[in-house]
């Protein structure tokens, strides 16, 4: 190695060490808490509906309607700030969000919108009895799956 290339290598090394330091200067902890929190609320409400659909708990029209209403309400939250660019699993260790989200953010938004559409369809049948519940939950589940397949790394 010549002195020049060695110096260049050193400089590059220094830059690589410096980069993570500047990145941690901005914390995304609140962003991650917010978006994981919404996901947890979605799972929680789907769990109530799913329990009824599977016969693990008795059907209760009012509770089913409330859970479906909650899903629709969450689907109306904007999905922008909490998905800040740079808060992906290559930059941070405590997230499963793939960088691919920001390669095609419009598609990510579209996948969120299709979750919203299916949540509205579920809302329409949730209070009408346990029979229609399974299919409507399946419809919502397909939209969770589509987004997790494309944008969430396995554990």
């Amino acid at each position, binding site marked *: 190695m010549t002195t020049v290339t060695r110096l260049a290598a050193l400089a590059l090394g220094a830059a690589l060490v410096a980069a993570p330091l500047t990145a941690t200067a901005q914390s995304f902890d609140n962003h991650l808490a917010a978006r994981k929190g919404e996901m947890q609320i979605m799972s929680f409400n*789907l769990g109530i509906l799913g329990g009824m659909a599977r016969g693990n708990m008795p059907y209760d029209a009012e509770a089913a309607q409330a859970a479906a209403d909650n899903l629709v309400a969450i689907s109306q939250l904007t999905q922008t700030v909490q998905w800040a660019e740079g808060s992906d699993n290559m930059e941070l260790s405590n997230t499963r969000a793939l960088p691919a989200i920001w390669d095609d953010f419009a598609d990510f938004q579209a996948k969120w919108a299709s979750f919203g559409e299916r949540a509205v369809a579920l809302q329409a049948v949730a209070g009408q009895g346990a029979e229609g519940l399974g299919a409507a939950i399946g419809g919502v*589940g397909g939209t*969770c799956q589509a987004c*997790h*397949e494309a944008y969430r790394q*396995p554990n």
Partner: protein
Amino acid sequence: MRKGLLIGTVLLAAGIAAGWGITMPRSDGPEVLAGLTPNPENGRRVFLAGGCASCHAAPEGENDLVLAGGQRFETPFGTFVAPNISPDRGAGIGDWSALNLWNAMHHGTSPEGAHYYPAFPYSSYVRATPQDVVDLHAYLGTLPASDTPSQPHDLGFPFSVRASIGGWKLLFLTDTYVMPASEDPQIMRGRYLVEALGHCAECHTPRNGLGALDTARWLEGAPNPSGSGQIPGIAPDKLDWPANDIAYYLETGFTPSFDSVGGHMAAVVKNYAQLPPEDREAVAAYLKALP
């Protein structure tokens, strides 16, 4: 990876030294399939459980049933590209006999008598029954044809030499099952689905330096081959879900806490959702019966 390369080179040398004889691609004659009548409906079941479309469907295709190939699989040995297996006579496998498919799935041998790479999971499909292969062959013939040509793989030496796979097969290609036989027909069906068709282990079992499954750590979880993260373990000491929750996950993608499936498992669930409920229950029974 270093180690893998080194062992690979040694194996290749050993394969050549031992003579072409023992590492030569094997194939069977027509007697293995004699007297079998194809049932394409069962072939569809084999196709779904086998997950053929997850690898062979065109990457950007709208229709999962156009098996034009083109998906790329990055591995420590290089990049594999899934070939066209649609019924097109030129670009696909439209002129293959059921016996050709049998030899590909059972021996990893092409109609021209070359070795296939184990990126094509024949180390699972080797356990498939002759009847299921005949049925699958008939079903594949009903799918749409595509004239998209197959792309070459992009592999480093020595893996670019197909003859090097002979040694690998000698060591790792076996049709014996990992789980011992059981009295319970449901567990036996589950064993067949998981170990022969489902190739669940291809993702959920860690590999040794040569890319072969480490059967001592069967279904205990593994690093994600494509990208970051871990593929979870599904052996009983790793996954304590009741059997009906496992079957429900395979049907809907929902975990017991109603998280929803993602990653490469989503495609497996899409296939399993279309199988009869008794197949999902059989897989769950198998997983619960593992030691």
